């Protein structure tokens, strides 16, 4: 059992580390050592936190109770003070973030250029982690905005690090689009506050549940504006146009973290707001989510198929996979929500692993363009095996983790008779397999072509091995993650659980 106060460490820990690292930014081994130690420590702590939440969950007459930790800053009661809320969903996301964080730090130890490191690579990375963890743990929409801005400013600086021409161009696009989205976030917050008189998520949900339907039109409009804002961050159709560029440019470690985690913060925000707050008119909002999900799935994977560069294919894939997550949210049954969460974990792991592998390919050959490399399987067999495991999991081949993810989401679709969306999901999976095979054929298979740089690849592999280890582990023992996902979905599917935990209400 972990003391509740320790949950604040996921937000405070990274920022203190960042300050410490920034103070000693010229001290090379200190930077690496402390980064590795802190990321490993927070990872361990997040696993302990998740386990202690799961321990506390208890069936509570028909529903589910316990397993939600509420931290009141300055001990101000819920609707007034700043709160952090850790339920199973948000802790799972924190564990996932820290897992990818560890892998990226391990990878960065070997790949980050000296100049980048002196220009605050590690401090910025920890500020990014702080923003992401904070966004997952906050129980207040305004603080969600603040944490979004924190992770944005860190990601801006990391993207621009080095100031290569192509990098600057993509940073400009990313900055302008995100700042516009943030403005809309702020405007909709002000309208929401004017309408409901609160920004605390649980209080909002409670007020929306208890008031009569006269506010519905305003709330529906607000829900759609929030969907626009979070959809821009999560890169759903038709707002994904910005994504492939910025995720293509930075160094491989950053691409892995951006591609794996950053868009998922937007998905999590949609997950949280559309399961907890905006449930008054599912016939409109959640149907819209389904349509957007279907289009996102298909157009993302079409984009991937049309590209000829490993990193670009992976970037378009992010979009396609986000479609599956949104599909789970749109279906809004406990089964589908559990499916969406179960989908998220192996997919984030596989996506980050693949971006790191793209980084290794780049280190070995100097490029990731499919036509410029080939036959890498002769050069490094372990790398090829890692790629195959991650790629086939992403495409959803049994017995890898991705198969169970797709299976659960689509099964939930079948259960409530949404066969059209299930069909689109299966088609998307098939095309995903096709584009993964395209990378395999281009980069690993065939005759040896392209340059080979005289670098040892072994030191680059530990981070990737870590991620692939979890993918294979989930594939072999899907029951463990599935029960976690079911618990999280049970907490999320019934907003009263969350509301009661935060506001201390009893039915």
């Amino acid at each position, binding site marked *: 059992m972990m003391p509740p106060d320790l949950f604040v460490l996921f937000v405070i820990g990274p920022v203190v580390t960042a300050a410490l690292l920034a103070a000693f930014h010229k001290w090379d081994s200190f930077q690496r050592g402390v980064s590795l130690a802190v990321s490993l420590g927070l990872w361990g702590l997040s696993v302990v936190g998740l386990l202690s939440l799961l321990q506390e969950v208890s069936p509570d007459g028909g529903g589910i109770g316990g397993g939600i930790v509420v931290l009141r800053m300055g001990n101000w009661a819920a609707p007034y003070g700043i709160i952090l809320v850790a339920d199973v969903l948000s802790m799972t996301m924190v564990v996932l973030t820290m897992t990818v964080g560890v892998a990226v730090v391990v990878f960065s130890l070997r790949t980050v250029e000296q100049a980048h490191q002196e220009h605050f690579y590690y401090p910025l990375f920890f500020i990014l982690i702080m923003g992401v963890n904070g966004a997952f743990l906050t129980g207040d929409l305004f603080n969600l905005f603040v944490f979004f*801005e924190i992770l944005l400013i860190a990601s801006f600086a990391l993207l621009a690090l080095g100031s290569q*021409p192509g990098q600057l161009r993509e940073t400009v696009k990313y900055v*302008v689009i995100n700042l*516009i989205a943030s403005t809309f976030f*702020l405007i909709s917050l002000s309208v929401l506050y*004017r309408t409901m008189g609160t*920004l605390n998520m649980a209080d909002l949900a409670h007020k929306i549940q208890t008031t009569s339907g006269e506010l519905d039109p305003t709330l529906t409009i607000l829900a759609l504006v929030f969907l626009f804002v979070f959809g821009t961050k999560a890169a759903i159709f038709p707002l994904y146009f910005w994504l492939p560029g910025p995720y293509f440019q930075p160094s491989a470690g950053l691409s892995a973290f951006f591609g794996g985690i950053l868009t998922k913060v937007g998905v999590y925000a949609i997950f949280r707001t559309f399961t907890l707050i905006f449930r008054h008119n599912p016939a409109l909002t959640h149907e819209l989510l389904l349509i957007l999900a279907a289009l996102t799935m298909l157009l993302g994977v079409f984009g991937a198929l049309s590209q000829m560069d490993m990193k670009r294919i992976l970037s378009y894939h992010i979009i396609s996979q986000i479609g599956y997550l949104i599909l789970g949210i749109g279906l809004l049954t406990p089964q589908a929500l559990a499916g969406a969460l179960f989908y998220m974990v192996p997919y984030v792991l596989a996506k980050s692993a693949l971006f790191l592998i793209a980084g290794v390919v780049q280190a070995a050959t100097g490029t990731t363009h499919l036509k410029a490399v080939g036959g890498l399987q002769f050069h490094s067999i372990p790398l090829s095996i890692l790629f195959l495991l991650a790629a086939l999991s992403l495409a959803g081949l049994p017995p890898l983790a991705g198969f169970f993810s797709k299976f659960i989401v689509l099964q939930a679709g079948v259960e409530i008779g949404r066969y059209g969306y299930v069909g689109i999901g299966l088609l998307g999976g098939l095309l995903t397999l096709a584009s993964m095979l395209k990378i395999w054929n281009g980069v690993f298979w065939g005759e040896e072509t392209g340059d080979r740089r005289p670098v040892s690849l072994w030191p680059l592999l530990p981070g990737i091995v870590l991620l692939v280890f979890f993918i294979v582990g989930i594939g072999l023992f899907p029951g463990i993650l599935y029960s976690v996902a079911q618990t999280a979905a049970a907490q999320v599917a019934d907003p009263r659980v969350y509301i009661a935990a935060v506001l201390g209400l009893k039915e």
Partner: protein
Amino acid sequence: MEFVIISVIGVLFGCGTYLILQRHLLRVVVGLSLYSHAANLALMVSGGLKRGNPPLLTTDAPYVDPLPQALVLTAIVISFGMTAFATVLAFRVRQVYGSDAVDELAGGEE
């Protein structure tokens, strides 16, 4: 009074949109900062505009909602940081590309 502020918000948004659609990055940055001003004003209005009342819950007298002021203060700080970053970015683009026109940034793919 609220009507005046809301009209100002509308004007700021209009000008911001016009500037964001311009070719030159510096104008885009100014447009973004106008956007954030508009959003900050909207936050301020969201608590209702009242004068001369204390921002406390405990007094019996009518009180002013203190929360929007706390929110707007946070939002101002954030938009200040973001604008500073965007300005430096525009400056850097000018240095690297020799121009801050957005269409000059195109190309150089692959």
